[in-house]
């Protein structure tokens, strides 16, 4: 048997490797050029801790809202044909392509002090400018597509006949959903949830339009870079990258258990 060199494989490995290096180098460089002492001082800084925690829980609230509203939407999209379905599906993915600062402006028009919803929520003391609710709606707007798309794909992969059989066995529509569709699409919904939450964590553009203070982690990073320069901003960046990495590892593990 003659073994010839597969030049296509060689060329593609080199090209792909270049791109990988382009991604990895800056990330690893940021992490490894930081001084451990400096990293430690940064993580015990209450402002840094506060910003990272705020990012975590504001994104968790946004994700919670999307679970309650987006999973039902995903189920409808996966199960039913109706007029305008294509438009709705395009609409859901729109936040991915709209510049996030533009998304922030659009939200501000509706949820700002002069906006209709902004005014509507005013009496119950909820403001969306310079407040946690503002961060939440900004994150919800830009990261919702990840959950809805994943959940829709999950439901679409469940044979509708399984639910039909469940119905003939005596389950109502809710029972068939809870006992058949939901458990079978569960992995997709879970990974969509993690992905959405992670995307929310990293949101900067839409958040900063609505809420500069209180600061989420990316805004804090931006402020430190603008006000104090690279050396001061770098350790914050390291912590943000590391937390994103941790989230991503969890996501990959989830994806792997799904395959099994």
């Amino acid at each position, binding site marked *: 048997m003659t073994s010839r060199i597969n030049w296509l494989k060689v060329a593609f490995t080199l090209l792909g490797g270049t791109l990988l290096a382009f991604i990895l180098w800056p990330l690893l460089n940021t992490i490894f050029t930081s001084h451990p002492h400096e990293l430690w001082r940064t993580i015990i800084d209450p402002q840094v801790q506060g910003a990272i925690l705020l990012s975590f829980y504001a994104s968790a609230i946004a994700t919670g809202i999307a679970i309650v509203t987006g999973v039902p939407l995903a189920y409808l999209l996966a199960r039913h044909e109706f007029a305008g379905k294509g438009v709705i599906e395009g609409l859901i993915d729109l936040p991915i392509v709209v510049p996030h600062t533009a998304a922030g402006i659009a939200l501000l028009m509706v949820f700002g002090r002069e906006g209709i919803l902004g005014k509507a929520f005013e009496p119950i003391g909820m403001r969306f400018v310079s407040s946690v609710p503002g961060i939440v709606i900004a994150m919800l707007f830009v990261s919702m597509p990840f959950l809805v798309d994943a959940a829709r794909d999950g439901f679409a992969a469940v044979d509708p006949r*399984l639910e*039909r059989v*469940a119905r*003939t*066995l*005596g*389950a109502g529509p809710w*029972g068939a959903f809870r006992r058949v569709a939901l458990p*079978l699409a569960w992995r997709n919904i879970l990974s969509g949830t993690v992905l959405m939450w992670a995307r929310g964590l990293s949101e900067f553009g839409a958040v900063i339009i609505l809420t500069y203070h209180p600061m989420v982690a990316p805004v804090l990073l931006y402020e430190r870079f603008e006000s104090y320069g690279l050396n001061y901003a770098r350790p914050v960046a390291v912590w943000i990258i590391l937390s994103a990495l941790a989230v991503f590892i969890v996501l990959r593990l989830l994806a792997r258990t799904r395959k099994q």
Partner: protein
Amino acid sequence: MTTARLVVDQLGVAAGGFRLSAIDLAVDAGEYFVVLGPTGAGKTILLETIAGLRRVRSGAVHIDNEDVTRYPPERREIGFVYQDYALFPHLTVAENIAFGLRVQRRGEISRGVARITALLGIGPLRSRMPRDLSGGEQQRVALARALVVAPRVLLLDEPLSALDPQTREGLQRELAQLHRELGTTTVHVTHDFEEAAALADRIGVMNAGRIVQVGTVDAIFRRPASPFVARFVGTRNVFPGTATRTADGESRFTIDGVTLATATTIVGPAHAALRPEDILISAAPLPSSARNCLHGRITAITDRGMIVYVTVDVPPEFVAAVTRRSVVELDLVMGKGVYISFKASAVHIF
């Protein structure tokens, strides 16, 4: 014993680009009724409509004189088995079978499951997952899951089609035996005439969204109501022609200048159907006045294992089914001139 009469009355359904029109069926309590038709005839849609899974456009479905047309599936007490079984992949065999008992909050779940698994011989599979089962095992589990809740009507959608021939034969016998033991009113759809003939008390032949003939296996086989039914049940010889009556009252049928002796009261344009196994092939004319005897030339020989189909061009072309042994004994080869004979009563005019 829970068993019920099922009546489908002038049912009309539109599903996607597909429609069922004016379907009438009356299945007696305890009857094994087979809906026979080609792929795309609308058989599955009919079953799903009886089960309440599709919206009815017109007509009604009655179970035991109760109008269930507007009932959701969960209130109809119907068992449904799909062609590829549709077992819940996230549940074990026992959990699959217990599903109906559980959602209906019936007691004695483990006893019910134990009884039905014993009846179907799948007790040892109870803790397995569906993906670890063979086709035949999956089908038994699907049957158990449908039967454990003692449905009033059992609907089977091509339950044997996805199985290999051997498993299929075994399960076919089991279906017949289950039906004898439980007596559940059953509607079974298939495209396979032999399967239908083996199981059915009566058959309804379906084509293009309509029921075109209902009758016993023998009636459908011997007296098809249309060229479609005749061809579908394996009658190879279907000819359009004209039925006439001779001066002394005997019936005749003329096809392309060939006249056959028949036994019918029909007169006028009609079809003649003749089963291949009713045709005899011989080297010389057979001396019998009761038979039609025609001379022709062999234009095709198709070997089907146990039997061989021989096409004889008179014209028209007749297909005869003969044993392998006759092929050798009569030295049947392409182009050879032979005589074909059949009784007047074997020619079905419709």
